[in-house]
């Protein structure tokens, strides 16, 4: 098979999947009933939709890449991404849903009765959205350059991928029909998961053994490709724990010191609760309890997903090393059996396992991951621009059309900025600083979210004395601290603490909390606090919603065969 054929297959499959994702609607429309009743299938649907928003290219390509390049230290990404839902489950999910708004800025604005909080939150959301979008664009560039290998219109392959992906998704989001419905997102996640399971099955079927591979890879010190004087060569990685010892695949230290590891995990764990596109979907659950149950399912799905990703990252390292000498097309990508760009791990593994079709399948799954996440992000950005900023502040008398136009422009603008940034950040230039460019860049979004939004959200939910001014202070201090630490790391990558500065949450979040508490104690709480509090934590509304759902379901219970006339509702569902 030639590369062109692979591209053809991939394009066809991608188009089919896109059409499916956009057009497929549940034929059994009554699934809404299961949903309403809070039964397992409904909660599952929402959980899968949240996963669709959450699992981005960083999860699909990035985690495997991080494991590929730094072994055990890459697993911390998987652990941190998955563990992020634990604080959500414990502290955020149920009250957030009970309060019932449309987005995180809305929630903060209403809870603290202040438009200013909403606006500042919108600003923070924008930063998060952008820093989350950039790695997605980078990942689509990487995927394109490996899948198609050539660019159009004078652009190189990477740039073509970035431009094509961002324009397509921005176009779909801005001008497409129904956007980001629950079922579309759920379906996209199911596709991603299916591909991952398929690849794992193929790899295991070829006789791969995880424990065996880890033992094999750990026998020699870890050596990774480095560009020295224009020449790629493998160099041993020095352990961050003991400066004189080499790092090994199955031991910590290939990338992070004890402190660095802790900071990374905390950053990732706290970040999830502040991700706008993920948390927006929590408002969809039928009840507060439903939101909590949804989170449990998300945790399960995330666990499986990341376990597979870690396994496949290891598999890639082992398999590619074995076949590098006998497979000519690997020569361009590898240095002595190790990939130059770790994000290629999954894609290469796919091609090794099932030829061009395998490569195409993985590439499509990666693009689906990019599409679902980018769509969610762009929508979060557009909604906050069109609704919160434009209609809320700039032009209070805006008509619906103007709001939509503002939202569309925001989509296009945000996507353009992300694309330009991604073009500047070609991953090969970054691998010196980060284990996996895509996974690391996503942690930036997590860092801002966890430093600014999460503390303020948790305080707003659980602390009665929280005030609007306190929230503003928390948001500003948190994001400013995070971004400052971040810029310092970028400006001085040679500092010994540069890696630590890239995961600023453990420092920035306490700063935000202190600022929020100090300012809150000096200002007055909203007058109708008791009412707001009952909305957040009262379960009566939950019970009412559940009772109503049960009543609705009772109407469509299957009736006894004797009552012929009432069977009609079955017809309704069959059609």
């Amino acid at each position: 098979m030639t590369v062109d054929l692979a591209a053809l297959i991939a394009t066809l499959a991608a188009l089919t999947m896109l059409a499916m994702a956009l057009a497929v609607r549940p034929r059994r429309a009554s699934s809404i009933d299961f949903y309403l009743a809070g039964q397992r299938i409904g909660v599952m649907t929402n959980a899968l939709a949240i996963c669709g928003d959450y699992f981005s290219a960083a999860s699909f390509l990035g985690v495997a890449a991080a494991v590929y390049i730094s072994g055990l230290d890459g697993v911390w990404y998987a652990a941190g991404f998955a563990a992020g839902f634990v604080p959500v489950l414990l502290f955020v999910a149920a009250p957030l849903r009970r309060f019932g708004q449309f987005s995180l800025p809305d929630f903060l604005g209403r809870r603290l009765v202040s438009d200013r909080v909403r606006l500042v939150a919108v600003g923070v959301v924008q930063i998060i959205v952008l820093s989350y979008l950039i790695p997605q664009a980078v990942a689509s560039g990487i995927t394109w350059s490996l899948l198609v290998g050539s660019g159009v219109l004078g652009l190189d392959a990477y740039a073509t991928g970035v431009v094509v992906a961002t324009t397509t998704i921005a176009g779909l989001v801005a001008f497409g029909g129904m956007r980001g419905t629950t079922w579309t997102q759920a379906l996209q996640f199911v596709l991603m998961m299916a591909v991952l399971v398929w690849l794992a099955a193929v790899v295991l079927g070829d006789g791969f053994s995880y424990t065996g591979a880890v033992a094999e890879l750990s026998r020699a010190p870890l050596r990774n490709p480095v560009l020295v004087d224009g020449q790629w060569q493998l160099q041993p990685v020095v352990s961050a724990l003991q400066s004189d010892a080499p790092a090994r695949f199955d031991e910590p230290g290939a990338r992070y010191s004890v402190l660095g590891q802790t900071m990374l995990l905390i950053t990732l764990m706290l970040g999830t609760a502040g991700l706008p596109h993920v948390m927006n979907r929590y408002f969809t659950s039928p009840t507060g309890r439903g939101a909590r149950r949804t989170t449990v399912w998300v945790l399960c799905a995330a666990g499986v997903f990341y376990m597979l990703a870690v396994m496949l990252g290891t598999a890639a390292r082992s398999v590619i090393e074995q076949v590098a000498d006998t497979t000519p097309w690997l020569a361009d990508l590898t240095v002595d059996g190790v990939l130059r760009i770790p994000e290629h791990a999954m894609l290469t593994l796919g091609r090794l396992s099932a030829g061009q079709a395998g490569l195409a399948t993985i590439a499509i799954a990666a693009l689906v991951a990019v599409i679902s996440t980018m769509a969610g992000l762009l929508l979060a950005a557009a909604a906050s621009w069109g609704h919160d900023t434009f209609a809320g502040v700039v032009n209070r008398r805006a008509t619906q059309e103007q709001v939509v136009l503002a939202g569309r422009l925001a989509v296009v603008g945000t996507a353009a900025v992300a694309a330009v940034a991604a073009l500047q950040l070609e991953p090969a230039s970054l691998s010196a600083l980060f284990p996996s460019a895509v996974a690391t860049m996503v942690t930036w979004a997590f860092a801002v979210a966890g430093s600014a939004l999460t503390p303020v959200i948790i305080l707003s939910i659980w602390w009665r004395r929280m005030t609007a001014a306190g929230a503003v202070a928390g948001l500003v201090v948190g994001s400013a601290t995070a971004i400052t630490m971040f810029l310092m790391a970028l400006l001085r990558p040679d500092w010994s603490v540069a890696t630590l500065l890239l995961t600023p949450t453990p420092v920035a979040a306490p700063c935000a909390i202190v600022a929020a508490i100090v300012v809150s104690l000096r200002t007055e709480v909203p007058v109708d606090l008791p009412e707001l509090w009952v909305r957040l934590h009262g379960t009566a509304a939950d019970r009412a919603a559940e009772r109503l759902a049960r009543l609705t379901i009772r109407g469509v219970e299957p009736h006894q065969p004797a009552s012929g006339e009432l069977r009609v509702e079955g017809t309704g569902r069959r059609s």
Partner: protein
Amino acid sequence: MSRSAGLLATVVAAAWILLYVAMHVIVDPPLHTGVIIALGLAVTTALILGFPSTLRGPRDPLTTTGRGRLLRQRAPGAQSTSVAVFGRDLPLRSGLTPEAAERTVRLLRPVLAGDAVAITDTEWVLAFVGPGSDHHRSGHQPTTAATRAVLAGGRTKVLRAREELGCSDPTCPLRTAVVAPLLVADRVVGTLKVYRIDETPPARQPVQDLASILSLHLELAEADRERQLAADARLNALRAQINPHFLFNVLNTIASKARTDPEDARRLLLRLGDFFRYSIRQDGQFADFAQEYFFVRTYVALEQARYGDSLAVRFDVDPQVLSVQVPVLIIQPLVENAIKHGLSEKVGGGTVSLKARVDPLSRTTLIQVRDDGVGMPEDLLDKVLSGNGPGGGIGLRNINQRLENLFGERYSMHVRSGHAKGTTVDLRLPLR
């Protein structure tokens, strides 16, 4: 797109260009791209968060939220500003309440050439600001006899001496005053009082003018309240107006089933109970979509018991819609219309479908009720939309009017129909 948004875009674009030129072209060696992008994002965020006020053009300080502070810096008696005070958010626009009165007098005191300003209603002092507030307190009865005279007579009075004020407290610093009535439809509802601590009374004309402007606002508030009452009354009438034919039909169905299938009859009676409970229990104009959906389902179950196999209903509802607030009693009448006018006359029956989505981009809820029934020719559709259609029930025009009251220009309702082509109603409602 408004001019200000375009300006915002220009300013942001200019900032980026400036940043690029400064950091990438002029500086040698050029800064790292990531740093430039980060700086640019910071600048953009700052611009967007901080600039809306600037972009709106120079704001009149009197209409900002900090108006109290700004006003106090002006010399008392600066009459020229008095008109500017009456922006659209003058407190009394929401009625004569103590809070609104308090805010109003704080707003007015620097504008009027008085030392103390008070507002009363017909019985109590609602707000008092200035010297003498230790014994002229809000929540008490007005101490001056002149107030009672103005309340009774409805004419402005100028009090030129301490005795005329009739304050019982001998230490009261107030000497002269102007008392002007606040009128709603020629009825005195309160007074505006301006005091001075020296012997020259405040000028009569400005006080009277302000009182009449305040009266105008109070009248507007009254009109608002009446409009609200009328809307609520219409909704209550709508709740009470369950189509009697529907009730007869359901009762007949139940009666016929009572013998053949008592269990089913019992279930239908329970559904009927649910239906009525919901239709009378609610108050307020909005409810969760989930509740309205339940109501529609109950209604459909009752209709299906009657129509049997000839009525099929499809529900296609995205879970995101469930928690959205929608106006009550909008969706059920649409479904009822579809069944009653669209399908009941069609041989062999048909399908009604209800579809609901949320569009996160425009923040609208999209609700579509469609039937494949007999439809209506164009002239009939026009008649129905203008409220001249045949038959009673809750017409499309009624629904349209209620939506207009609730959302103004921000909703849309499209009806498509044709002879034997079925009818489709598309609603697009803004999220609240």
